[in-house]
């Protein structure tokens, strides 16, 4: 690409060109400030696209029948249907694009005018505490560098454990081991760390046949037996 051919830049920004084409565009970009500026603008837009999950473009009802629909309808027919609770806002995102600040302002304006999108009520009044009786521990392991947020939720005679672990390597084969106060251990499942999970943190959950007050610790280790991180509940 020795001439300006901006129409290549869109596919380039989206990572859809063949390697040879990429090389040609790179060569041109090295010498053309104008195209570099254009590319920067296109790349900003690509980053915005990341705010929408790919599943947003699937249409229609779920595959495999409407059991879920029937279950949901039963729920709305029950007058005493329990509404699940949302929690307090989570940690602030670190990456902010000025486009999204603009976007936020748009929605605030829309809300103020009473038209279209009204967001406040969709989240605020539902902000509430976690499932009553849950225990939550965040811990880091200085040796392995892994960090984990573990939440143990009470169930009737057993517990549900959810963890979010960062600092794992892609390809790690992990298992979650729960130890109760008598020293008995339970493997609450195992999983493989994907590239994405290695980058963004791995979320995993499993149940153990131990009441929440008997749960002593939650350990993540590799199935090869290497310790990753332990949270004492």
């Amino acid at each position, binding site marked *: 690409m020795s001439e300006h051919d901006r*129409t290549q830049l*869109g596919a380039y920004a*989206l990572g*859809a*060109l063949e390697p040879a084409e990429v090389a040609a565009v790179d060569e041109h970009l090295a010498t053309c400030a104008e195209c570099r500026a254009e590319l920067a603008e*296109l790349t900003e*837009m*690509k*980053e*915005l*696209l*990341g705010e*929408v*999950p*790919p*599943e*947003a*473009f*699937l*249409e*229609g*009802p*779920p*595959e495999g029948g*409407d059991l*879920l*629909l029937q279950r*949901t*309808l039963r729920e*709305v027919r029950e007058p005493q249907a329990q*509404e699940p609770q949302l*929690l307090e*806002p*989570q940690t602030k*995102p*670190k990456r902010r694009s000025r486009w*999204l600040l603009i*976007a*936020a302002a*748009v*929605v605030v*304006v829309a809300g103020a005018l009473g038209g279209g999108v*009204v*967001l406040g009520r*969709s989240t605020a009044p539902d902000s509430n505490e*976690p499932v009553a009786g849950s225990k*939550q521990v965040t811990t880091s392991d200085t040796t392995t560098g892994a*960090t*984990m*947020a573990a*939440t143990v939720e009470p169930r009737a005679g057993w517990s549900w454990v*959810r963890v*979010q672990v960062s600092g794992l390597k892609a390809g790690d084969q992990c298992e979650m081991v729960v130890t109760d106060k008598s020293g008995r251990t339970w493997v609450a499942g195992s*999983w493989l760390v994907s590239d*994405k999970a290695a*980058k*963004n*943190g791995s*979320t995993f*959950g499993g149940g153990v046949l131990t009441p929440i007050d008997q749960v002593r610790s939650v350990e993540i280790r590799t199935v090869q037996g290497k310790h990753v991180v332990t949270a004492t509940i």
Partner: protein
Amino acid sequence: MVWAPADPGIVRSVADNPGPHDTEILIRALYAEHGRSLLAYATRLTGDRAAAEDVVQETLLRAWKHADDLTSGSGSVRGWLLTVARNLVTDRARARAVRPTEVADVVDTPPVTGDHSESVVNTMVVMDALDKVSPEHREVLVQLYYRGRSVAEAAKELGVPPGTVKSRSYYALRALRAVMAEKATEVSHE
């Protein structure tokens, strides 16, 4: 009153007058139009089909209870639903405080954690912007970005020459920028 399921106004109508029959129509309509998208998204986030079904059910119940907050236009409704689903997953995972220190350049999907209201804004606004570009432009972005197809694959899928896919993707990103800039202008004029 009877509403056609595809009528986006149904959401608001039910909010105004939530009879049991209307509620069912609303839930059925949302399920038929957005169920697959929601369930696929929740399944990816939870990694667990049963948990994902719970999330979808909770999301639909929430849509019913907050029907007056849903806007007309399927893009925004879907953005709302997906965001609520994501927040429910986040709440379940309670992933607070465990964020990578810096998310490397561009992630393919939004992070699972994040401030609620801001997440709602982001997904909804970008979906709304995507609704405003032409179908040809949206389609090429879906192919190249969201489905990760190459130019050649997208050309085959869309039945147009590769050169068209390239130029369309360029103009699609430009169009998206124009829509976002227009939103920004609207704000500055308020």
